[in-house]
């Protein structure tokens, strides 16, 4: 099983990961529907990266049992079962479950890895089983 290793110190805040994610997963040119979050903090000068690390807390808090793990190890919210209560969004310690107009239900990283290819700064890399 793969995980994505996050190195915020390397992040330049360019949002190519988000643009790539949105293109790959929603066929949209925007950074605003991505399954990854980048939050700049200035003037101190740092970027927070919000990305699912497969901790599974969302699954444990979901009252509808809508969250499962797919064959890649990614957590997935089943649209048919999800009751849109927002418990997973609130409980996620990484603030890595997102809502946007691109989907009826919340969503998180699906481990497609498209962002990794386009992160030249290597703030995102594949990490083998921890």
């Amino acid at each position: 099983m793969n995980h994505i290793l996050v190195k915020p110190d390397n992040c330049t805040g360019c949002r190519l990961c988000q643009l790539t994610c949105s293109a790959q997963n929603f066929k949209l040119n925007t950074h605003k529907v991505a399954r990854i979050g980048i939050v700049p903090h200035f003037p101190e000068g740092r970027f927070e990266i919000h990305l699912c690390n497969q901790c599974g807390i969302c699954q444990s808090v979901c009252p509808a049992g809508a969250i499962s793990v797919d064959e890649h190890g990614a957590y997935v919210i089943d649209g048919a079962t999800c009751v849109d209560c927002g418990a997973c969004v609130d409980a996620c310690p990484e603030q890595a479950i997102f809502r946007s107009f691109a989907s009826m239900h919340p969503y998180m990283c699906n481990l497609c890895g498209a962002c990794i290819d386009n992160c030249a700064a290597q703030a995102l890399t594949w990490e083998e089983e921890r």
Partner: protein
Amino acid sequence: MINGYGGSILRVDLTGKLIKREPVTPELAHDWVGGRAWIAKYMYDELPAGVDPLSPANKVFIATGPLSGTLWPSSAKILWGTKSPLTGGYIDSNMGGMIMAELKYAGVDMIILEGASAEPVYLMVDDEKVEIRDASAYWGMGSVDTEYAMKRDLGDEFQIATIGPAGENLVRFACITHDVGRQAGRGGTAAVLGSKRLKAIAIRGTKPIPVADIKGLQKHTTAAIDYIKNTAFFPTFSKYGTTDITDWCDDVGVLPVNNFQHGQYAKKDRINGKSIRENIYVRDKGCYACPLGCSTYSYSKKYGVYVEGPEYETIGLMGSNLGMDSIEEIAVLNAEADNLGMDSISSGSAIALAMELYERGILTKDDVGGLDMTWGNVSAARSFLKLIALRQGIGATFADGALAAARTIGRDTEKYVVQVKGLDYSAYDTHAAPAMMLAYMTSDIGAQHTRAWAIVQDINMGRESTDGKGKLVYDLQHLRPLMEVLGVCRFPWLEVKLDWENYVTALNLVTGQHYTTEELFAFSEKVWNLTRAFWTREVDGFGRAFDQPPARMFEPMPDGPTAGAKVTQTMVDQLLDRYYDAYQWDRNGLPTAGRLREVGLGYVADDLLKRGRIAE
């Protein structure tokens, strides 16, 4: 919906507080593409001839291109164009950061600012909601401070561009700031905003940019990034950015020192890219969709200031050119120029002129408000900056630009101003660099390196020679504008050698059109003729006399690797003749009516003929 475009132009009348949304037509998109070309066209078509740049009748055109805000690498440019209060001619100045994407997500490709408000205002674009709002709470605040304050008030998701006290006080080289430290730096665009009492523009948008082939664009982008990150150039440029060239410029003797009196700096190791990493580096920072992340965000412990940069041009103009001791001094000057909202290049040039005149005894201590304007005096330089921004004392004279200041001071001081068309030289000495000098001489905004950056080829082709250099500058002036027509940064092409054809492919994937390089280069020639036509219309007697290098270049370089080198009028004339020939302009450097018609500017030819500005 037109692929690659937000779809509308916002026309904002600040006098009547009226906002109109005009559609981007398929003809405008296809025939004029975007960015710099739109600015050149709208400026020629809509500005009344001879308009005073600081009057309500001047307009500001803020334009993106079809690639701005897209996934394509470094698609992070927005351009600010107006009739320049510094030069009296055409200016567009481009800015990186994030705001170009936000504007297109709000469904807007260009904003046209007209008229002038009586009281301080800011423009808020929040998708369909567009408002002119009271800005009295921010008036008087620094550029960067205003951005932080407005983000606190409006929310972090807004992207904001601001002016500082210098813009408010109509300093003719005031700049527009965004994303902490990205500037539309040159030509005084912020003074025009100041004259309109427009403190800031805040933008939030939620609509994705329509792309004809998003899958194809993603594939093309990933291939380009794979190329970029595996080049030998990438590790160095992403680490040092523009400052990487400092050592080379010093080696070949083109680093400006003490107002371009020398080309090599004894303290070079204290101001170069390496000194940034060792002394003030906080982190790398990237513009939108940029894999290069060339910007450095810094903190000077010595002065307690954050600054984005310093970039190479600031190191040159505010560092070696002022005789500053180390990168810390440059950082504090840069930070203060940024927050006052002043172009660090022209600010450096103005301070350098004041220091040279002081050292020569032409300006006395009394003249300069009691400051000891000796080379390297950072506290005097900081005070001088503030005098300019607030137009106090001698600062009021220099606030009109170094050339205007020399004309006011008189006593044959104009010869010490290193400029073309009133725009101060950026950081490449041209005592022995004919192509770079020709690029400065013929740039359509004045002496700015980004219109054609020929210094490396100059050295490689033989710096004493003028052979092939007219053609070189002509060719660069065809490729460079296209970057700003499309709305992308030039650095992936320039610094890591991403082939130009990749940009044409990206443009076609985004727009669904079938542009070719040949067609785009012909279009570029049309745009270059149009900005030349604007100068011809606006400036009495415009022509060859305005394409001359500064007097300093005719003085022999006293020392360093170019010792003894100087420019001669014969060389200048030879360069200009070949350059005008390449454009098929007349010997006075004016486009002929016939040539204007050939490049598709018949209406401009008719207009200039009617005004008696050109011959048939």
